[in-house]
Structures are given as C-alpha cells and as structure tokens.
C-alpha cells in the first residue's frame, strides 16, 4: 500500500475503527515507514490535545439575553400580524380585488373580445365627452348673450328711472 492510501486510514486506525486485516496492513506500513509513523504519532498527540480544550462558561449577560428572547423578540410573522396587518387590511382587500380582476382578464379564453369591448366603451365614452363639450360651448355662448341682454336692460331701466326723477 502507498503512503497516501495508508494516510487515508490513519484516523480510523487511531480510533480503532479498522477491521483486523486493514489494521494489520497499516501496522506493517507504520513499522516500515518513518514519515507515516511520525504523522500517526502527531495525529494521536493532536487528538489528545484537542480533547483537553476546556468547555467555556456561559456569561450571565448572555443567559439573561437568551431568557429575554421570547418576550422581547417575537418571530417576524407574529410581529407583523400584531402591528402592520390590521392597518393594511382595507388596502389588502382592494389589492386582492384588483389582482383577481386582472387575473380574470389575463387568463380569460376570449381576451380579444374583452379588449374589443373595452375599446368600444372607451371610444363611446370619448365621443360622449366630446358631445358634452360642444354642448357646453353652445351654452357658454348663450349665457354670454343673455348676460349682455340683461346688462343692457338693467342700464336702460336705470337711464329711464333717472330721467323720470329729474322730470319730477
């Protein structure tokens, strides 16, 4: 076996996880190869040293912070449902209705017919508005005439009234 193949097995060998046949092969290789033997020894030293790293104590501040989590910081969904969502309900309802109408339009099998009917309605509405505008212009002209007639008659009445007063 090559050194690389043996090195792949060193960890399992160290943990006593290898079957007897492989263990014997690794044993033989280690007896003959000083490099692999040194590596195996260092792996053993490293494993023992790592096992001696002590557990750290958790600070009181951290524990206090952890106990405070459920009270102070609710999950995002809970926070949203308690604060934002009730205020947004009317807007959400309108948005939902709009989205439903849009999806009904987008997925309707006779979408072209709907387009044509919308076009027709828009044109009808436009021509109605135009007619109203023309009529309104006519009314504006008439109102102007009536105003000048009324003003003339008022002036005439004032002139006649003044003459009568002077005659008396």
């Amino acid at each position: 076996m090559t050194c690389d193949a043996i090195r792949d097995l060193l960890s399992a060998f160290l943990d006593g996880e290898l079957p007897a046949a492989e263990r014997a092969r690794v044993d033989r290789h280690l007896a003959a190869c000083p490099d692999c033997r040194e590596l195996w020894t260092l792996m053993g030293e490293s494993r023992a040293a790592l096992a001696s790293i002590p557990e750290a104590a958790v600070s009181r501040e951290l524990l206090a912070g952890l106990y405070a989590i459920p009270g102070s910081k609710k999950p995002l969904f809970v926070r949203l449902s308690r604060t934002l969502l009730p205020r947004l309900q009317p807007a959400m309802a309108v948005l939902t209705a709009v989205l439903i109408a849009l999806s009904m339009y987008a997925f309707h099998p006779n979408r072209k017919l709907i387009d044509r009917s919308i076009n027709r309605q828009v044109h009808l509405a436009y021509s109605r508005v135009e007619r109203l505008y023309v009529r309104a212009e006519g009314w504006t002209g008439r109102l102007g005439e009536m105003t000048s007639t009324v003003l003339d008659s008022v002036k005439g009445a004032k002139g006649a009234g003044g003459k009568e007063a002077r005659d008396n």
Partner: protein
Amino acid sequence: MNGYSKRVFNLAYQFCGSYQEAEDLTQDIFLKLHGVLAKYDPCKNFAAWLTTLAKNHLIDVYRKSKWEKGHRDDFEDVLAKAESRSNPEGDLLRRERTSMLWTALDGLAPDIRMAVILRDIQGKTYEEMAEILDLPLGTVKSRINRGRLQLAMALKDRKGECHDL
C-alpha cells in the same frame, strides 16, 4: 436552557474562536430557534437537531462574512473562561501544543473544522456526527481524517520551526 445554551455557545466559540463573537452567534441561533421551533419533529433527538441548526448557522455566517483569519482569542483566554479549572497548570509542553492547535483550527475549511470540533473536542461518536452533519458515515470519517492530517502537519511544521531556532 442552561445546558443547551452551553452546548451551542461552546460550539460557536470553538468554531469562530472569539468569545464576544460566539455570544452574538449564540443569540442569533436562539432567535432562529424560536422561529423554527414549530418545524421540530418530536421523534428526533432535540439536542442533535439544535446542534444541526447551530452548525448550519455558523457555517452560513462564516461563508457570508469570511471571518478574518488570526482573530481567535489567545488560548490563555480560553483557559481563563473555562468553566472548571481542575488542572489549570497542566504540562507546559502539552499546553503549548494545545494552544498551537487552537490557533491552527482557523486554517481548516469550515466543514472540516466543524467535523474535528465535534469529534475531537466535543467527543461525539461517528453516528452522532452523521446525524448532526446529515452526511453518510464514510464522508464524516473522511472529513475527520483530513482535518486530523492537516493539524498533524501543522504540528510537524511547528516542531520543525522550533528545531531550527
């Protein structure tokens, strides 16, 4: 809570190497836990499930933020923060070796580092590790082997440097 917080905090501390950062990471993990607790399957081992959650968070944060190498606390600080100090002095040579390995953990890729921590520092069995890491047993063993080999090479280099001096 105390047992679980100690477990999560120590995993975070051993993985990132900074006491302050480990405290922040533990807070984040417990916040996340409150959000996903409803998804917990009671048939599963809670401690293993929590460790998996912590492991995923630690590796995610590491990949996103790429903690700078060499910012691990000194090993003296680790000893000072230890919960029990039954043998605070120890053998000087062994202490130096442990200190060097503590620093060398930073040189391991996150997945390999996590495997070495779970096995060699926390003493988990291969089966427990396979459950926590959600990996086949063979992959777990190969990661531990790679990690231990890298650490052994680091020790060898260090010994070489000492001899040169």
